[in-house]
């Protein structure tokens, strides 16, 4: 599904990713853990195509295609979804309009029929109900005035609607209480299938109690310094990053 080879990237001339190698097969869930400033968000932005990041070496192949050549919207339409660490507030754009526009853009890209307002509303209601998310935020402007928890829930709702192939979650659990954390985990688990994969960036082992990963990687100073199975997350919790990175 995703193959990252020797990926190096910089921001404003400063190298942040210093040779990442990571392969994610269909159906797999990978967790990436690491200290602040390690480059986790940078990795998620490079994969989703944000401007300002210059890839200086290496390659990323997604479903057999050169991912780095694709525009961000094409990546999204091809099934890559980034749940933002810091979801963006967009004053003046109603959440419902935004979601419908995004969903229909993706459906159109895949050659599917666009949903009308009624079909869309029905679908959203279904998803909010499944996830136990209040749908009153649909009427509000995108993320404007949302609490931290609401913003993260909104990301999970968008993911549920857009049904991506590759979910990238950047610290979706940070700042969430246990109930919200379960909503986020539930969002991922509901989509989990033999075809879908996920890359879950997190600081804490606790999310991984709910989303059980197949692999855990430690990212430090722009490199994956250690990989293992889910027990690595527990080990990290015990010993801290410093010891693991040094080992």
């Amino acid at each position, binding site marked *: 599904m995703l193959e990252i080879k020797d990926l190096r990237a910089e921001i404003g001339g400063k190298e942040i990713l210093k040779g990442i190698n990571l392969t994610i097969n269909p159906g797999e869930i990978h967790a990436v853990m690491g200290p602040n400033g390690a480059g986790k968000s940078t990795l998620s932005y490079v994969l989703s195509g944000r401007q300002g990041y210059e890839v200086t070496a290496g390659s990323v192949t997604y479903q057999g295609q050169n991912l780095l050549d694709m525009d961000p*919207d094409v990546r999204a339409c091809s099934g890559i979804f980034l749940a*933002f660490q810091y*979801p963006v*507030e*967009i004053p003046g*754009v109603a959440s419902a309009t935004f979601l419908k*526009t995004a969903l229909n853009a993706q459906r159109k890209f895949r050659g599917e029929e666009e949903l009308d307002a009624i079909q869309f509303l029905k679908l959203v209601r279904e998803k909010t109900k499944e996830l136990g998310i209040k749908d009153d935020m649909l009427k509000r402007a995108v993320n404007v005035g949302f609490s931290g928890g609401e913003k993260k829930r909104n990301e999970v709702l968008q993911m549920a609607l*857009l049904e991506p192939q590759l979910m990238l979650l950047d610290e979706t659990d940070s700042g969430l209480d246990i109930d919200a954390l379960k909503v986020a985990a539930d969002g991922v688990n509901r989509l989990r299938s033999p075809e879908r994969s996920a890359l879950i960036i997190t600081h804490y082992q606790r999310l991984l109690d709910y989303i059980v990963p197949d692999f855990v990687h430690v990212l430090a100073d722009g490199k994956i310094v250690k990989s293992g199975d889910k027990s690595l997350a527990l080990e990290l919790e015990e010993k801290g990053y410093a010891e693991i990175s040094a080992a």
Partner: protein
Amino acid sequence: MKSLSALAQSYIERFDTALETLPGQSSRSITDLRKAGLEKFSQQDFPNKRVEEWRYTNLSALTKGAANEDSSGAPALAASSFDADFEIVFIDGIFSENESRLDKLPQGLSLSSLATELGNGAVFSLNDEEDRSLIALNTAFMQDGFCLHVTENTQISGVLGITFKSTGTETHGLHIRNRISLDDGASLTMLERHEGKGSYFSNPVTDISIGNNARLDHYKFQNESVSAFHLALTDVEILQGGIYKNFSFSVGAKISRNELKTVILGSDAESHLDGAYLMRGEQHCDTTTLTEHKVPQNISNQTYKGVLDDRAHGVFQGKIHIAPNAQQVAGDQLSKALLLSDYAGVDCKPELEIYADDVKCSHGATSGELDDDALFYLQARGISESNARKILIEAFLGDVLTSIDNDVVREYFNTQSALWLQNS
């Protein structure tokens, strides 16, 4: 004597011949009025950049005589139809009976052409003691326009359409003079539209008086040809409890200026001047307002939003003047511009002249680009860059457009704004 601009000279040379055909030529008092206008104009010439109020708008492309050189101009947006309940139409500044629909004018509303009124020798007093040369020029050469009157306590329902179309064949400038008076307790909603093709100079001057507790909702759509010059001046007087609401939506002209002056003469009166302008290419759009609070207890506000692409340029100059005795007055002013290109720009000059102490005033002016984070967020959900930009531009314009009270006009402006965005 300093030398006059080429265009001013040609006006002066042409005046005597023009007098023979301009309406009201048989009336002594009208001829004197025109002569006085010409005299004032020839002392001042067209405004140039040395004049403080014209620092940001350069008319030399007009005054060097270029107005008719480029005849290729197309309308900024394709000519649009608006389903007004009744409509008066002017072609190249002249009343067109054929195109107008005045048969169903309601009781209490009278509407006539200025040329007819002048031809009948109507007594005409003018309110331009301030010596604004564009008004003086208009007085000298005014050829037509409308005279609109609503009688006491008459509430006109529906929307009155006032449409100015230009074919680009009139080479001498369109000196349109309009007069609107609403008697006490009267109300009216009107949409003034300007559209055209080719190259021309349009100079509409409008005097408005709002009686006690009267209300005028004055909408304006400026969709002149992108080779045209549009220099409009509107003066408004508002009496006690009167409300004047102006919303100007501008997409047209090569160089345009919408100059609005409201004088609040009564308590509980309100002046609302709002607008949106969408400009691209080399267009220049100037909004200049002056709001004078002469007496206590009334309010004024202004909100303008501009979207500027390519090398387009916006100007917002807004002055709120509060007289010494005008206590308990609130005046708010806000100008926001969205720059879509590195070469687009805006000049803002908010000014508060406050001589009373118990007042509440605010002003703010911002300009900025589209938010990159928001753009990326939309794209990361599958929305193309061009659509994401449109969504964010619409969001920027959203609050000022939704503030429009009249449903039909709001819908119309929303449609025009969407059309403008489609062309980008």
